[in-house]
């Protein structure tokens, strides 16, 4: 049996303290089958919580199917901003029996389990709460309202005024008519009363500090941040083939295509997508493709074409576990080597790996700028966890910079690959000026004539690679977490593991351990070297081999003593990372 008898756990608690007090951190998890309404619940609850002024973070895990299976979403409400997944569950709302089984490892004696009586095991009166969602829904007029009732329960327990929810329901269902609105409100009220009552009888108190509800605080997931970053980066062309979890960026730009004049094309395959992107970019568009590892594997020859023709392209890859089809809806950071070494031949590239909403937006803008400036392919590596996670960002942290186009009006005699000191040629586009713009995938001379002259080859290889020096020297430095100068041990992370590292280090509170997060993983700024001097190094990665640890070793000549790795298809939880860091520290 997976349930602990919570009753005996609480007998000796002092009377003055509530049995269940949440003063800083509350983790609510909703579990059910696909199509059962987990998403309906969380998409109502999250904006309501945000409006109430709570810091919140939410992440989702789901199976690769349209209906059925077992999915869950965590909503964390915290006193200070947190951006990480915790395995601890304070309140579990189970919409079916499979959800209880699916999440059993995360249920502890202190977890309160809300479910219909029929779903609950008999011997768990202490932590199980018979929750008649169906009855509330029927009373309100339709079984589909059970989700609204569940939202009402959470508000009731937290003692949040019901108005916030009823306002939301009015807006949300306005188009469906007054009956649907009022039935939803009835379901919410029934749930709310149940929640209030449960809080009293079970002695549950949520006293997490709130802030003024700020209109300047925005709520979004990583996918939306990537889309906003692309728009801010001036992207005006996207051609892509749907592949989870990269599809959302295509959907986002399609949604915004009218407003910003973004040409959006759903390609017949990934090979078409990147070649269309390169064609567009050759003609002067700012082009983006979005995909996942498998789709990018198909794009590789196109990547090489971008390198040879010096045509800018931005490639967003939402990573998921491979090889092959792998686990389509799960998360991993195992495609770093793929993008570092993709494409035949040698050419310059840059790779970004953001770890927060702010960084997703900034690095996407930066990727657009760099690809145009250096006339190279630039990657933005995210993953399922980061793209689906919802949290808050301040509107003032999103900046729209003037776009530097780097396109010149050509004059007669223009040569696409003219030689220069830094290897960069003025970029012309067809139809703008008197010159002819000729691009070639063969080795070519300055005017794009295919050549097999070895001296020209040598000159052109050098031309294409020379920009790496500037790229390297202007690469983003990592963010330091804690007192990196004083610490003996540095835990190094990249991409989506930023939030979990920050929180784990906070919990450990050990001044001997600090963190470092890379939002650009290639090239590595040579100035990094001195930051690592004299430190024990551990690299944290959501993969099985430690790909970034290898890269860092290669780039800095430093030995990486420890690798903290996970490749189960799930993100790191704060708890397990705290444990791993402790082990590393004692090793």
């Amino acid at each position: 049996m997976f349930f602990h008898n919570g009753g005996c756990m609480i007998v000796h608690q002092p009377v003055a303290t509530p049995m269940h007090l949440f003063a800083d951190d509350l983790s609510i998890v909703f579990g059910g089958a696909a199509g059962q309404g987990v998403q309906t619940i969380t998409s109502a609850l999250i904006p309501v919580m945000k409006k109430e002024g709570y810091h919140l973070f939410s992440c989702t895990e789901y199976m690769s199917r349209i209906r059925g299976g077992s999915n869950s979403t965590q909503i964390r409400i915290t006193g200070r901003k947190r951006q990480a997944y915790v395995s601890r569950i304070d309140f579990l709302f189970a919409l079916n029996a499979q959800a209880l089984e699916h999440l059993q490892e995360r249920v502890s004696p202190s977890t309160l389990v809300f479910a219909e009586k029929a779903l609950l095991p008999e011997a768990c009166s202490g932590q199980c709460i018979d929750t008649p969602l169906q009855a509330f829904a029927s009373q309100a007029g339709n079984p589909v309202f059970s989700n609204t009732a569940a939202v009402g329960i959470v508000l009731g327990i937290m003692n949040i005024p019901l108005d916030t929810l009823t306002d939301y329901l009015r807006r949300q269902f306005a188009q469906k008519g007054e009956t649907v609105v009022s039935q939803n409100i009835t379901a919410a009220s029934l749930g709310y009363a149940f929640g209030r009552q449960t809080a009293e009888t079970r002695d549950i108190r949520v006293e997490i500090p709130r802030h003024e509800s700020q209109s300047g605080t925005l709520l979004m997931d990583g996918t939306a941040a990537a889309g906003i970053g692309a728009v801010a980066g001036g992207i005006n062309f996207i051609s892509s083939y749907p592949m989870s979890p990269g599809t959302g960026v295509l959907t986002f730009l399609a949604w915004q295509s009218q407003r910003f004049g973004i040409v959006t094309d759903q390609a017949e395959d990934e090979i078409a997508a990147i070649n269309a992107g390169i064609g567009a970019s050759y003609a002067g568009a700012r082009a983006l493709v979005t995909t996942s590892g498998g789709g990018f594997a198909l794009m590789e020859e196109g990547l090489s074409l971008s390198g040879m023709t010096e045509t800018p392209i931005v490639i967003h890859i939402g990573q998921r576990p491979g090889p092959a089809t792998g686990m389509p809806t799960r998360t991993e950071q195992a495609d770093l080597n793929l993008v570092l070494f993709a494409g035949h031949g040698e050419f310059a590239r840059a790779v970004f790996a953001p770890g927060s909403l702010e960084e997703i937006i900034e690095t996407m803008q930066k990727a657009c700028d760099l690809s145009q400036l250096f006339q190279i392919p630039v990657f933005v590596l995210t993953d399922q966890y980061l793209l689906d996670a919802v949290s808050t960002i301040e509107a003032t942290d999103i900046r729209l910079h003037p776009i530097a186009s780097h396109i010149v009006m050509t004059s007669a005699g223009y040569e696409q690959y003219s030689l220069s000191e830094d290897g960069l040629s003025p970029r012309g586009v067809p139809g703008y000026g008197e010159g002819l713009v000729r691009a070639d995938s063969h080795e070519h001379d300055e005017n794009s004539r295919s050549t097999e002259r070895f001296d020209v080859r040598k000159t052109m290889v050098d031309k294409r690679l020379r920009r790496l020096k500037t790229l390297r020297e202007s690469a983003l430095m990592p963010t330091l977490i804690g007192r990196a100068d004083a610490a003996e041990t540095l835990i190094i992370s990249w991409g989506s593991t930023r939030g979990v590292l920050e929180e784990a280090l906070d919990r450990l509170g050990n001044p001997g351990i600090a963190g470092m997060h890379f939002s650009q993983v290639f090239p590595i700024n040579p100035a990094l070297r001195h930051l690592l001097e004299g430190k024990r190094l551990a690299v944290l990665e959501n993969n099985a081999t430690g790909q970034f640890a290898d890269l860092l070793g290669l780039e800095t000549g430093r030995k990486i003593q420890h690798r903290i790795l996970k490749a189960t298809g799930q993100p790191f939880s704060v708890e397990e990372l705290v444990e791993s860091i402790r082990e590393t520290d004692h090793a």
Partner: protein
Amino acid sequence: MHEIVTPYDMPPGTDVAWCPGCGNHLLLEAVKSALQTLEIDPKRLVMVSGIGQAAKAPHYLNTHMINGLHGRALPLALGIRLSNRNLVVVVESGDGDMYGEGGNHFLHAIRRNIDITVIVHNNMVYGLTKGQASPTSLKGMKTPVQTGGVLLEPFNPLAVALGLDAPFVARAFAGDVEKTKEIISQAITFRGFSLVDVFQPCVVFNKLNTYQWFRENTYYLPPGHNAEDRTGAFETATKPGRLPLGVLYRNESRRCYEDLLGIGDTPLHARQQPDRDSFQKLIDTFRQDHTG
């Protein structure tokens, strides 16, 4: 090379990598001649190609060009047209490039109906890789790979294009420069996806389908041919025996993808800065909701 007689001629001394006697030379002459007749400004024209002997054609024309990857000329052409519809885009590549490696793009470019002209050098053999079968090689042709002769029926580009309602489907024979020029002119003028499959003898690796063979095994569509009858065109394209030359099918009623997408006249290179007010509106969307 000859002295410069058309605006599309490359400077004298430009190295041409085609074999003496190759049908590509004649086809190049026909293309230049069509462009000249139509008075297309080289500064408005982009030639796009994949890889192979045929795909070298853009190198021998003094216009904008992008010579991309094997099989991938059509996606490049798509990207160019969607980014700047003021440009005239002509794709030139071989049968292996277009019907083999790039087959999926061929299907979907026709479905989209992008306003481009696609000239396929069809010599029924792989020349640059030294004589293997191409998708259009005739059954029974012996090659270093198909040692017992080609086992499969040849790919029929006209029938496939008609099946997808390609709005302009034609075939030419490079040995007849004047007629080829006429057909290509019509194709470039046509608004929508225009396919011109051009028989073009490979004098080194295809000893079967020679100039003589093409003369004997083709015929021009009669003057009364009804190019608006798709079913009739399909019947003509699939009839065993001699192969038809000329404009097989024209459908003026299909709208091109650029129009369906509402692509405006301002090229994308001229509008890179996102509008500040629109951006503010986008950001405002996220004050309440959390996803796109």
